């Protein structure tokens, strides 16, 4: 898919009173990350590699849990995907041992077991997110990027920016081109999530989990109508479309 990697813009400005502050500088935040893929299924590993490399990340692939643990201790990775069932030691043990060794690399646990309980077990072991097989690469990439950005998810001045959109995370206010928006709670969180991942495709299921905190499979249409409602509030006739629909994958907030 002809997706271009665009930098996420987390602009820091001095806090103003009523209107969104002008950005002081534009920081280049979206950078190439080094990601460890621990996966014994060659087919899945190839998909993960292809999808992450398409986003210009560097991928190291290992099929064995023990080797992965050694490698993680020796080298710094920005994120890791860990399969639940692995030869050597299983995925959850690997994550638990990583955490015991103070290795804080964010981990996306990937598993063929999709139940809610499995998800909880994955997170309890020290995983940061959970993805059930089979998955769409877009969703996997979204989840990895959510993890990559987590370390810097709260801007110093409390303001998030993406193109014409500015969000005051403290006062929960939003502006487009300096024009204040009237958003209800979930709409604000939805916009915040899109702004945090501006320029990247975010999968519907990830939006649902991150914004609503629910982990069942919501129908695509359910997320679509929320996006449509937010779109109506964001977009005016004189403005270009800000939330793009990427067919079969999800949504992307334009940064331009």
């Amino acid at each position, binding site marked *: 898919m002809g997706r271009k990697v665009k930098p996420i813009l987390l602009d820091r400005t001095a806090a103003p009173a009523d209107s969104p502050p002008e950005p002081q500088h534009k920081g280049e935040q979206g950078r190439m990350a080094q990601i460890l893929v621990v996966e014994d299924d060659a087919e899945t590993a190839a998909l993960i590699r*292809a999808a992450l490399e398409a986003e210009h990340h560097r991928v190291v692939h290992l099929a064995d849990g023990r080797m992965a643990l050694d490698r993680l201790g020796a080298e710094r990775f920005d994120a890791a995907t860990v399969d639940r069932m692995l030869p050597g030691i299983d995925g959850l043990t690997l994550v638990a041992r990583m955490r015991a060794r103070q290795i804080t690399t964010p981990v996306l646990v990937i598993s063929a077991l999709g*139940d809610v309980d499995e998800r909880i077990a994955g997170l309890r072991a020290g995983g940061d997110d959970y993805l059930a*097989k089979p998955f769409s*690469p877009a969703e996997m990439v979204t989840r990895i990027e959510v993890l990559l950005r987590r370390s810097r998810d709260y801007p110093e001045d409390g303001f998030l920016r993406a193109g014409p959109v500015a969000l005051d995370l403290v006062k929960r206010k939003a502006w487009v081109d300096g024009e204040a928006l009237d958003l209800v709670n*979930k709409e604000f969180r939805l916009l915040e999530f899109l702004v945090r991942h501006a320029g990247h495709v975010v999968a519907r299921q990830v939006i649902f989990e991150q914004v609503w905190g629910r982990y069942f499979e919501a129908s695509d249409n359910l997320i679509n109508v929320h996006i449509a409602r937010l779109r109506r509030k964001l977009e005016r006739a004189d403005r270009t479309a800000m939330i793009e629909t990427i067919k079969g994958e999800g949504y992307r907030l334009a940064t331009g």
Partner: protein
Amino acid sequence: MSETPRLTDLRHTTAFRLTAGLTGVFIVAIFAALWLIYAQTTAQFDQRTDQTIASKARMLAASTTAQRLGAAIAARRDSTSGLEGIAVFDARGRLLIGDRELAPPFPLGRMFERLHGPRGAPVRALALPTIDRMTVVVSRDVTPILDLRARIWAIMWVSGAGAVAVALGAGILLSLGPMRRIRRLEATATRIATGELDLRVAIGRRGDEFDMIAGIINVMVEEIERLLRQVKGATDAIAHDLRTPLSHVRTRLERIALLPALADQPDGEAAMLLAGARDELDAVLARFRALLRMSELEASRRHAQFVAFDPLDMARDLAELYEPLAEERRLTLAATGTTGLAVLGDERLLFEAVGNLVENAIKFSPPGGTIRLSVTEDRDGVAITVTDEGPGIAPAERALVLERFQRGSGTAAIAGSGLGLSLVAVIVALHGFALHLDPATDGPAPGLVARIVAPAITRRTIPEVR
């Protein structure tokens, strides 16, 4: 279903019918025997009386002179003062001597009866001609015989009625036991029929015909359960085994999509075909996931994870989540109810279950309608109700739509996998709650009232969900 047998039910039992039949035969036999005794006894009495009367009458009639007749009468009278009567009439029927109650008319030479004979008693009598065209009449009081007849008659009635009463009582008593057992059998069988396949009919130690029937029923239920498990196991196995190769197909499609030739032309025909194939595959995989998830949920025992939460909070979150979807179809969705109620359960799963009900309501409601999501407390417990104005579910289909892949008739035009309500049923069953699908009683359209009823709990110091 009541376990107390009613009399009208007893009437139809085999035990009762057998007893009643046997009693009938008995009664006929008793009556026949009594009748025989009665007939024989009375005939004997009558015969003896008649003989006595006849011999006496012949003796008197044989007197050759009036003096001899008078002497004979005088002699007889002394000895027969108690029961006998004697009278002599002249040719014109005037009483010459004796009891005037025996006055003519009477037939000559054969027995006749008179209700009011001498001393007012009923009598049998015989009149014979004698000398000088006179008539001599001899009678005998039959009161003792009539008494005896009445007694025998009374004995017959009393013993007959007694036998009938005893037989009825015995019939009822004999039927009660079997009837109770049949009722218990019926109650258990009904519960099994409604899905409680782990139940078994109790088998007694007597080893009688009821225990034999119970044994047969249990074997049948076991076989049904085994077959159901087999079918379900096969479904799960198919879903499980096909998931890995299908996942690989899905993964390969994704990798094809990432190839430069396709990635550079996202709107090209190849990319479109690929996207279509992927969507179809996703639908299949989603169904497999849902199936396996239901099996996992059915097998799991997660009561330990249950916590108390306010169902109204959940309902409000649901309304907030689904409101835009409702609005898109020009429907009104509102959550109302009683605050401060508490339900013990897995909030995430119940949210999903009620979400499924709301999504169904949105799917099937005609535009412009209202969907009500309410939380109320009644005597059954806490009810979470989703009411719509859609076509509802036909009574015959209510149980069926909870089965996997089953959809109501007339829903063919609306997309769906037939798994939504099954998941709701699984989640509700996991909690031990009740799920009711009823027609809406008010409102213009038929509508459906989907109700999840949980036992009410008092809010304790249980940690909040989330």
